[in-house]
């Protein structure tokens, strides 16, 4: 998974042709930390179809808010640089993320 920050968010995601998924996470977000291994596994499995990236909101809060993300966990899908789906909430499960991935491949 690509590590995103304010310096590369646009070049990696906004200018990417095709589907990309960004995992917005933070160290104080328990659910994010818990989902992370599953997300990495999904990234390994589907990396040939979708671009996977993650963004630690620490130091990148403005980038996240610019993407309409104001709560964690947030998994956001993009197509040709346009936001197409935002999954969020404490109850978010890896299965829901995988279902979304399957919709976009």
């Amino acid at each position, binding site marked *: 998974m690509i590590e995103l920050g304010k310096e590369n968010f646009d070049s990696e995601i906004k200018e990417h042709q095709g589907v990309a998924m960004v995992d917005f996470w933070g160290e104080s977000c*328990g659910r994010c930390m818990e989902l992370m291994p599953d997300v990495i596994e999904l990234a390994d499995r589907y990396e040939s179809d979708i671009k996977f990236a993650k963004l630690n909101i620490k130091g990148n809060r403005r980038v996240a*808010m610019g993407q309409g993300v*104001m709560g964690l966990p947030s998994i956001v899908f993009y197509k040709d640089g346009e936001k197409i789906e935002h999954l969020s909430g404490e109850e978010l499960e890896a299965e829901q993320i995988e279902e979304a991935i399957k919709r976009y491949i």
Partner: protein
Amino acid sequence: MSEVYDVLIIGGGAGGLSAGVYCGRGKMKTLVLEGSARTGGQCAKTNELENYPGIVESTGPALMDKFREHCDKFGVEFQRGMVSGLKMAEDGFTKDVTTKDGTVYQAKSVIVATGANPRILGIKGEREFTAKGVAYCATCDAEFFEDLDIIVVGSGNTAVEESVFLTKFVNSVRMVVLHDEGTMDADRTAQEQALANDKISFIWNSTVEEICGDELVNGVRIKNLKTGEITEHDTDGVFMFVGTVPNTDFLEGAVELNRGYIKVDDKMGTSMPGVFGAGDVNDKWLRQVVTAAGDGAIAAVAAERYIAEEEHWSHSVLEAKEDRLVAFWNPLDKQSLELMSQLETRAEAHSLKVVTIDTYKSRNIADRYEITQIPTVIRFRDGEALKRIEAPSAEKLEELF
């Protein structure tokens, strides 16, 4: 199928982990099954922790890490799994616990400590803007609201304490309170802290009607309950702290519930023998870390007793090769004491073994045989009750032989 655990604890919050410490220390084979939440349950989402005795100042996550460390020290196992079902096995002793992925765990005793989750009110815009300005956890999302203006809904301890915490990040907090001016549901210390904080203001007698925004939250419509007047306010975020709902869906039909909360007795026992409840999931008066920890300790000790009693019963009565005399007695009862000495002597004369069940300590087995009179003596053969005598006189005892 896995090996049989002595105690299976469902939930890794304060109640579950406290039970874990007691079970582990009691040398019981213990497993904590954790659902989707991180270890620590609701406490791990709390920032200001001032009411756990002995911990003068700490954060929820830090305290829960200590609980976890304490469990690890005593060899408690941890596994991930969302429990979907709980039922008594055919032997009437072992419990089968099923998780969503189909795994079945077996345990002699189960402690349900699944806690509760934030209540979702279902206000217009609430779901739509979750993670886009609507938040339920200050720890998780506070930093998004740095230097912004927010609304907090609720006036209980969580709402008030988290509002004070949020003022470290945000520009201003407006608390929307259902009650008349000056009335909150929080304890006095928390209220005083909020009232003294100049970043916090109040909108009394009101509820949030709608959360508005385009991509992110940008305002709320607030209804005054007295006048019916609706006013619009700009805001960057809405934190909802309006109580919790228990996580007991999987217990529906298995144990008795009250409005979703588990009905427990003073030993944390539920309507299913060997299944105990601990923490916020219980139908109780005060839901705090300290009471959850207390529940956990009681449930763990009760579970240990339950197992010892059941195993003793099976081994010494149900599986016994010879007949057994079982005396249900109460050591505080004079008639019981008199009977016991006579029973021992007569039994010895007939080379019969006596098993005693102390009904003062536990009613579990006594209830199974519907013992209402103390003392009662039953003669068992091949695990079945053969002859029963209630409150016998010395002469009547002879009928047993």
